[in-house]
C-alpha cells in the first residue's frame, strides 16, 4: 500500500508537471490574447516528432535543445502570418483558425511520419535505474523528466517576476490597452508569448515522447485534458493552472492504480439497468475523471479554482 502511494504520488506529480508545462503556455496565451489555442497540444506532438527526427540523425541531446526552439519558431510564425490576420475578425475566428491548424498538423504528421507510433527511445545516457524502493525500480528518465519540468517552472517563474519582459507580460495580462499606450509593442509581445508557449509545449513533447508513445493521436489524447486543466484552474491564472495540473495528474494516476468497483463494495447483485456501472473499476473510470471534475467545478465554482474572471 505504501509502495502504491509513493509511486503513484511520484508519477502523478510527474504527469501533473508535464500537464503544467503545456497548460502554463496555454493559459498565458489565453489571458493575453484572448485566444484559446486548440493547436497547443499539436505543438506538443510536433516537439515529440522533431525530437525523434533529430535524435535519429544526431542524438537525443541536440534534439532536446533544438526541437523546442524549432517548435517555438513555428509558433511565432503561426502568430505572425496566421493569427494576426484573423485577429480583426474576432476571437471566435481566431479559435477556429487554431482548430483548423490542429487538424492540418495531425494530417501532416501522419503524412511525414506515418500513422503508426515511431520508435522514439530513451537515450542510453539516461537509461538506468534511479533508485529502488520496496522492491520496485524507478527509471532515471522519469526523474530527468521531473527535474526538467521543475527547472522549467522555476525559469518561467523567474522570467515572469524578475525580468522586464516578464513584468510587461504580467501587465498586459490585465491591462493590454494601457500597456500598448505606454509604448510597448503589444503585437510583438503576442508573438513572443505565442512562440514561447509553443516552445514550452514542444519541450514537453520532446521529454514525454520517449516515455509515452510518440504517435499521431497524442495531440488528441492530451488536448481536451489541457482545456480541462486551464478551466478547472481558472482561465488566465498560472497558479490555478499549476494546482489543477497537479490535481488532475495525481487523481488520474491514483485512479489508474486502483481496482475497486461497486460490485466489490456492495455485493455482486446489481440493480436492474445498472449492470455496467456495477462492474466498472476505478481504473476504467480514470479517463472520465478529468471531465467529471470539469463539470463539477463549473457547476459549483464557475470561475475555476483560482480564477477571478468568468470568460
Amino acid at each position: 500500500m505504501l509502495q502504491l502511494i509513493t509511486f503513484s504520488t511520484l508519477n502523478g506529480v510527474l504527469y501533473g508537471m508535464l500537464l503544467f508545462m503545456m497548460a502554463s503556455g496555454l493559459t498565458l496565451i489565453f489571458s493575453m490574447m484572448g485566444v484559446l489555442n486548440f493547436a497547443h497540444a499539436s505543438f506538443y506532438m510536433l516537439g515529440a516528432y522533431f525530437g525523434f527526427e533529430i535524435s535519429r540523425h544526431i542524438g537525443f541531446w541536440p534534439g532536446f535543445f533544438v526541437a523546442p526552439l524549432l517548435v517555438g519558431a513555428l509558433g511565432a510564425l503561426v502568430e505572425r502570418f496566421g493569427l494576426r490576420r484573423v485577429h480583426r475578425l474576432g476571437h471566435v475566428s481566431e479559435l477556429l483558425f487554431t482548430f483548423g491548424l490542429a487538424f492540418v498538423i495531425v494530417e501532416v504528421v501522419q503524412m511525414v511520419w506515418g500513422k503508426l507510433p515511431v520508435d522514439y527511445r530513451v537515450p542510453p545516457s539516461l537509461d538506468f535505474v534511479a533508485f529502488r524502493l520496496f522492491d520496485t525500480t524507478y527509471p532515471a528518465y522519469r526523474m530527468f523528466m521531473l527535474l526538467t519540468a521543475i527547472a522549467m517552472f522555476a525559469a518561467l517563474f523567474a522570467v515572469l517576476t524578475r525580468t522586464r519582459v516578464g513584468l510587461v507580460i504580467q501587465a498586459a495580462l490585465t491591462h493590454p490597452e494601457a500597456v500598448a499606450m505606454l509604448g510597448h509593442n503589444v503585437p510583438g509581445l503576442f508573438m513572443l508569448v505565442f512562440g514561447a508557449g509553443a516552445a514550452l509545449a514542444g519541450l514537453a513533447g520532446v521529454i514525454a515522447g520517449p516515455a509515452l508513445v510518440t504517435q499521431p493521436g497524442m495531440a488528441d489524447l492530451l488536448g481536451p485534458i489541457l482545456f480541462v486543466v486551464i478551466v478547472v484552474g481558472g482561465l488566465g491564472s498560472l497558479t490555478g493552472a499549476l494546482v489543477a495540473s497537479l490535481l488532475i495528474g495525481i487523481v488520474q494516476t491514483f485512479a489508474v492504480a486502483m481496482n475497486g468497483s461497486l460490485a466489490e463494495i456492495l455485493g455482486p447483485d446489481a440493480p436492474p439497468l445498472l449492470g455496467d456501472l456495477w462492474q466498472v473499476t476505478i481504473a476504467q473510470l480514470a479517463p472520465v475523471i478529468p471531465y467529471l471534475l470539469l463539470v463539477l467545478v463549473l457547476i459549483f465554482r464557475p470561475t475555476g479554482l483560482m480564477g477571478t474572471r468568468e470568460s
Partner: protein
Amino acid sequence: MRTIAPWLALAFAFAAAPMIFSSGSALTTMSLMGVMIVFALSYNMLLGQTGLLSFGHAVYYGLGGFVAIHAMNAVINAKLGVPAIVIPLVGGLAGLGFGFLFGLVSTRRAGIVFSMISLGLGELVSSSSFILRSFFGGEEGVTTNRAKLAHFLGFRFVSQIEVYYLIAFWCFVCALAMYALTRTPFGRMCNAVRDNPERVEFIGYSPRMLRLIAFSFSAFFAGAAGGLAAIDFEIMNAQQLGAQQSSLVLLMAYVGGIGAFAGPIIGAIVITFLQISLSDVTSAWQLYFGLLFIGVVTWAPGGIAGLLALHRQALRQGEAWRLAPAYAMAAPALAACVVGAIMLIELGNRELALERSEGSAMRLFGFSVDSASLAPWVVAIFLLGVGLASMRRLWPGVESAWGTVNARLLEKAA
C-alpha cells in the same frame, strides 16, 4: 410568395433528385446528405443564431441515434406495430431530453466557457461509451434491422430509395420547422442573446433561459438527425458521438456559412460530397479539409452562403459587371495558387507516405509524373510562387472594384 418559393424549390429538388441521380451510390450519398443537412442546421441554431460555439454537438446526434436504434430493436422484439417513419421522433425526443439535462449545466455562460463545457461533456460521453457497454455496444456498436419494422401506408422502408424519401421527408419538415423557429419572437431573442446579452437582460428576459431553450431545441433536431442516421445505417457506434463527428458538423456549418439560414444546407451538401468523392481521389483528403477550413476562416468568414449573398446583391442591382475585369485578372493567379498547392501536397504525400508501397510514379491532373524527379516539384513551386506573387499584386484591384460596387449600391439605396 418570396418566402414560399425557395421551399417549393427545395421540396421539388428533394422529390426529383433520385430521378436524375438514380444510381445506388448516388442514393446512399443523398441519404447521407439529408441526415447531415438536419444535423448542420441544428448546429447552426446554436452557432449562427444564438452565438454558442459547441465542440460537442455530436453527443446529441449520437445519443439520439442510440436511443432510436434501441427503440427499433425494442419495437421489433415486442412486435409492436410501429413504422420506421416515427423513429426519428424518438431520436429527437431523446436528443431533447439529453440536451435539456446537459444544457442545464452548460448554458449558464456563453462564450469560451460554454465551448469548454461542451468539449468536456463531449469527451465525458464519448469516454463513457466504452464503459457503459450494454447501451453503447462497445467497439462494434449496436445494430438493428429496419426491414422488421411495421409498414406504413404500404411502405416498408427496406430499399434505399424508400429510405431516401423517408429522410427527404423528415429533412424537409425539420428544415421548415427550424426556419419557422427563426421567424418567431423566440428566434429573434436568440439573435439578441448572441449580439448583446446585457440588453436582453434589461428588457426583462433571462439570457440563460433563452440559451437553454435554444440548446434543447437544437439538441432535439440533432437527435432527429441521429434517428435518421440509425434508420439509414442500421448501426450506431461510439464514433458517431465523438470529437470527430462534432468537428465535422462545425466544418459543415462554417464552410457553408453561419450567417445565412441556407448556409449549413450548402455546407452539408458540399462537405458530404467532398468527403465521399475526395477520399476516392487522394489519401490526403483530410488535409484538404483542414486547409479549406482555415481558408474559409481567414478569407471568407461568411462561408459559401456569405459569398453568394454578396454577389447576389450586386447582380440584382446590375452592378456585377464592374467586378468582371478584376475577377478575370485574379482568376488565373488564384488557379495557379490552387493548382500549385495541390501539386505540392500530392507530390509530398506520394514521396512521404505512399512511395514505399506504391512507387513514385503517379498521375497528377491527367499527367504521368514521377515524384522522385525534380521537374514536377519545380513546376509546383513555380506555380504556387507566381500565383501568390500575382495575387498580392492583383488583390487591391479586386478590392477597389468592390469599393466602387458598394458605393454604387449605397447610392441606389439612398
